């Protein structure tokens, strides 16, 4: 048991080192834009963080305009997915994936993928911070927020393993929020969860039929 744990820890350490190395390399590629980022985004950084929480606040409390809250949630999830997609090579250690597969159990790979996914998902962490701050009474008023966090996790997992299903999920979710129907926030979010689950069942479309 101890040996098993030690082997898992060595794999985890390797993956964490690969993760930080890849992120550093990605950041160094952005270095040439650093001055531009510092000038444009530097003063706005605090504002962006506040915007992140403001967006979450709107998603939590948009009972007066559920369709608006649902639209905001889909856009929020889309932005989150784009950020995670950019980080996928670091999260999965895509460059050495075959090496990992040749030596390590698939359950270990998935487990470490999920840990690094959580570590990378600042958006989900922000939601969890808000969730921890809610009282039971508040939770009863905003049960859809639990589904929103579930969707945030789904987005991350789909980005890693089912990108096509994520594409379908967003496509159908956008159709749902644009439909002229009157739904409560909870109904919208239950719909999104159903769409995300069902989209994994849609078979991939082959664009090229050349044989």
């Amino acid at each position: 048991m101890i040996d098993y744990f030690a082997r898992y820890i060595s794999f985890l350490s390797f993956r964490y080192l690969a993760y930080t190395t890849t992120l550093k390399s990605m950041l160094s590629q952005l270095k040439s834009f650093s001055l531009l980022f510092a000038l444009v985004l530097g003063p706005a950084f605090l504002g962006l963080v506040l915007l992140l929480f403001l967006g979450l606040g709107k998603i939590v409390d948009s009972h007066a305009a559920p369709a608006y809250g649902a639209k905001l949630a889909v856009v929020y999830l889309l932005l989150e997915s784009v950020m995670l997609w950019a980080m996928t090579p670091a999260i999965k250690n895509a460059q050495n994936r075959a090496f990992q597969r040749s030596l390590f159990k698939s359950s270990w790979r998935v487990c470490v993928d999920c840990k690094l996914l959580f570590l990378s998902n600042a958006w989900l962490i922000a939601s969890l911070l808000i969730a921890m701050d809610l009282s039971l009474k508040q939770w009863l008023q905003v049960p859809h927020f639990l589904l929103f966090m579930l969707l945030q996790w789904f987005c991350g997992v789909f980005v890693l393993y089912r990108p096509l299903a994520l594409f379908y999920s967003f496509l159908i979710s956008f159709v749902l929020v644009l439909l002229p129907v009157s739904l409560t926030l909870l109904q919208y979010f239950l719909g999104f969860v159903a769409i995300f689950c069902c989209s994994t069942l849609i078979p991939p479309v082959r664009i090229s039929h050349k044989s």
Partner: protein
Amino acid sequence: MIEIKDLNKRFASAQVFKNYNKQFNGKKTCLQAANGKGKTTLLMIIAGLESSQSGYVLFNSETIESVQNYVSIASDRIALPDFLTARQIIELSCKALKKEMPEQLITGFRFDEHLNTRFRALSSGNQKKCQLIIAFLKQAPFLLLDEPSAALDQESIRFLLTLLDDYLNDKPNGQIIITSHEPEVFLQHGFECSSL
């Protein structure tokens, strides 16, 4: 015995294998084909490291669930973590496979002095040695080596051949498949040539 059944593999618009069937009967086979015909891809599919559109691989007439436990592979297609030193990569592999540090393999390939060099800084010959050490460390019944002698010095090739000579001694149901554009030296050591 490894058998490939109805394999279809496509990269974007390039069809590499179309309803491909192949049976490797010999204990030691040297697979031959021109560049780009899919030798490495086939080895990767056999090792379960690359997926195919359809088809399956049989090992001694059976499909295997966790192929990586039964197949050992060395190929340039498997990128080793180049931010680690060779020692760290070998130690990581030892831990994964529950093996001791393979001192005999390291000495045999004269790799000692390169252990503390980062993988990315190793010459292509030494990178190949590192791949081979990990492949032999595993001691899986099925051994797949992609161009094992490429970039190796003569002494290391001789050591590789002694390893290949003895590899199947304790693996009665095992098999070795290699690819090589210079098969002569392997043919002298009991390998049979087979076209893709």
